[in-house]
């Protein structure tokens, strides 16, 4: 029954995206040569060696963090653990607050407490694996971590190990929806151990218009406002779809779309904004004013377009 409901809601999500599937674009987060894009806790915790990101540290506090925050994304990489390697991937973490975010565990099968809640692929201490992956050490595995708003999915070698709805996990429900991505410095209780990573790539779901538009409809108000901010970043290309959403009947969607439209125009109106951005946004508003049928929306679009010199 649950599967059916899930399937139906999935279908409705797909139809919301105007049946245009998003093609995921991945970018590399690790150039194989240095720690560009990353900020280490302290020097030496991680090194770039022959295209691999290697941690041979001993003890805590040798972690490495992305320079920017990520909210919704698909992170793909390969990892390899030594005999008793112990590492992990931090998600949506605020560096100043070690308790924030959560960790996808990477652990060699060596500790006595390596249960399903603390093994590779688990959301360490929060959500256990339902489909435990192979844990053989010394071999490379592919891992994918997908953070789709409240749904976190972890896969190892293309097999899902863990699906978590963080809204239903008590210990995760107050966690921020955005934060740094980090790799945990190896901290096995034995010296000479290591963890290695390579081919670290990420797809920013918030750069996909269809994905962002679906978020405007989210039940969770923080997710809606995250989508509002993502819409504003996307700018001109969101004007028409947002104008359509504003013309609909759902008061929630209308109000978020209305605000996003204002913010897009306001941002483009900044004297410091690039001329090209201004031009694109101005022309998007012009087009939208012509093609929108709701009089209230058209009137609103005209008004805010006035901020970028596009009056009446």
């Amino acid at each position, binding site marked *: 029954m649950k599967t059916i409901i899930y399937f139906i809601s999935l279908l409705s999500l797909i139809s919301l995206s105007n049946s245009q599937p998003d093609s995921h674009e991945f970018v590399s987060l690790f150039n194989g040569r240095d720690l560009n894009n990353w900020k280490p806790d302290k020097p030496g915790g991680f090194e770039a060696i022959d295209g691999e990101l290697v941690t041979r540290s001993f003890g805590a506090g040798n972690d490495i963090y992305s320079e920017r925050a990520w909210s919704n994304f698909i992170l793909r990489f390969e990892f390899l653990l030594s005999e008793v390697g112990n590492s992990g991937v931090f998600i949506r973490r605020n560096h100043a607050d070690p308790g924030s975010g959560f960790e996808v565990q990477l652990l060699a099968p060596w500790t006595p407490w390596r249960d399903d809640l603390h093994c590779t692929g688990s959301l360490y201490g929060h959500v256990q694996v339902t489909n435990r992956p192979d844990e053989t050490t010394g071999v490379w595995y592919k891992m994918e971590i997908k953070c789709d708003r409240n749904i976190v999915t972890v896969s190892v070698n293309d097999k899902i190990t863990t699906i978590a709805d963080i809204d239903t996990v008590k210990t995760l429900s107050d966690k921020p929806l955005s934060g740094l991505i980090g790799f945990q410095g190896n901290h096995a209780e034995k010296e000479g151990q290591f963890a290695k990573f390579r081919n670290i790539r990420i797809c920013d779901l918030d750069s996909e218009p269809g994905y962002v538009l679906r978020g405007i409809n989210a039940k969770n108000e923080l997710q809606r406002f995250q989508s509002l901010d993502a819409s504003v970043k996307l700018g001109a290309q969101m004007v028409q779809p947002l104008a359509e959403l504003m013309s609909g009947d759902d*008061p929630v969607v209308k109000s978020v779309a209305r605000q996003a439209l204002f913010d897009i125009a306001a941002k483009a*109106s900044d004297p410091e904004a690039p001329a090209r951005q201004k031009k694109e946004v101005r022309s998007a508003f012009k087009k939208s004013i012509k093609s929108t049928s709701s009089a209230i929306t058209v009137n609103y679009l005209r008004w805010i377009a006035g901020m970028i010199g596009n009056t009446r």
Partner: protein
Amino acid sequence: MEKASKINRRTFIAGSAMGFFGLPLISSASGKAAPSDRVRVAVIGLGSQGRSHMNWFNALPDVEIAALCDVDKIRLEEAMKQLQSVNPGSRAELYTDFRHILDRNDIDAITCATPDHWHALIAVMAFLAGKDVYGEKPLTYTLAEGQTLLKYLQKNKSVFQLGTQIHAGENFHRVAEIIQSGRLGKIHTVRLWKTGGSPGLGFPPNQAPPDTLNWDMWLGPAPYEEYTPVRCHGSYRYFLDYSGGVFADFWCHIADVMFMSIHPKGLYSIESRGERPHDGIADAPKWIDTDFKFEDLNVFWTTIPPDVPGSDKMHIGAHFEGANGSLTCDYNNCLIRMGNEVFNDIKEIPVTLPRSPGHQQNFIDAVKSRNQPESNLAYAREMTIPMHLAVISFRLKRKLRWDYLKENFIGDQAADYLLSRTYRKPWSLPA
């Protein structure tokens, strides 16, 4: 004032009232002035503040409430019932369109307690019709409206009082005397605050307005929107289409004591930070903090009290910092700190400012004397300018530079654009 045409009507009303009740004592018992000396006032907008107007002015000996007006018939009738309960002889006539009141030449003044987006148009039309205006705060919805208002006030030699009734109290006058005495040294920083921000009001669906409400007239010059109850009575101020939220509601009250005391000049920089509510269709700031830079003065507005002694007990307040001491006040309290000493007053500072006979009486006196009242338009407009600019900085999410002589922003077209708003047809503000 042009009284000639009014005398007959006034005599008639007085005569018929006495005839009807057979009790000429009613007039003297209520302490009322002779009818011919009464200022005839119409109250426009009959929400809670409008009904306060009605009661306040009705209680003045030299005022007659001549008309009541609201676009909501239920409110109109309720207000009339309330008026008759305190003034059984009231012959106030009821209107749903304020223009009919302006057409009457036997009305001397109007009070306006409509939503903010109506303030300017009603006041300008009243000036043009030869009426004086006691208008609610905030003064206007946009800065440009304030400029137009001043122009028409001067042109028509009208009288205007902003409804900042706290202004009339003893505390603000005394604070102004203490600050102006120079005992605290030159004031370099003022911190203003009001706790609590605007709510989101949830996501109610739109619906047909009740038959008793003229929704189109309620919207007036504001952009057309479908009706939903929270958008209208009681909570309209949480929508930026009509007002500026809690911030705009209270700015005028507490910035008042700063303008009374030091009248800051030369505003040149405005930077707001803040957040909209996430939980509803209303979009006024859930919180807003603004840094204003005036010539020789920094002013900080915050939504939580600043970290100064005593502020935790004041939900709204002003804190003045001078070279020799500080003063923290709200509507009724005053704490002066010099060194380690704390006191409520400095007795040797003489009383120099004339006290108000009451905010409404001050207006009525001005209507008679033709001298502008305490919260007159020129003063109220100056005081309201920073409020408009802070809301624009909040909306645009950027720091703005201001040319206080030309009254426009420097190098920011969009910010200038938001200084005014085109009225929805058929409404327009005279140029």
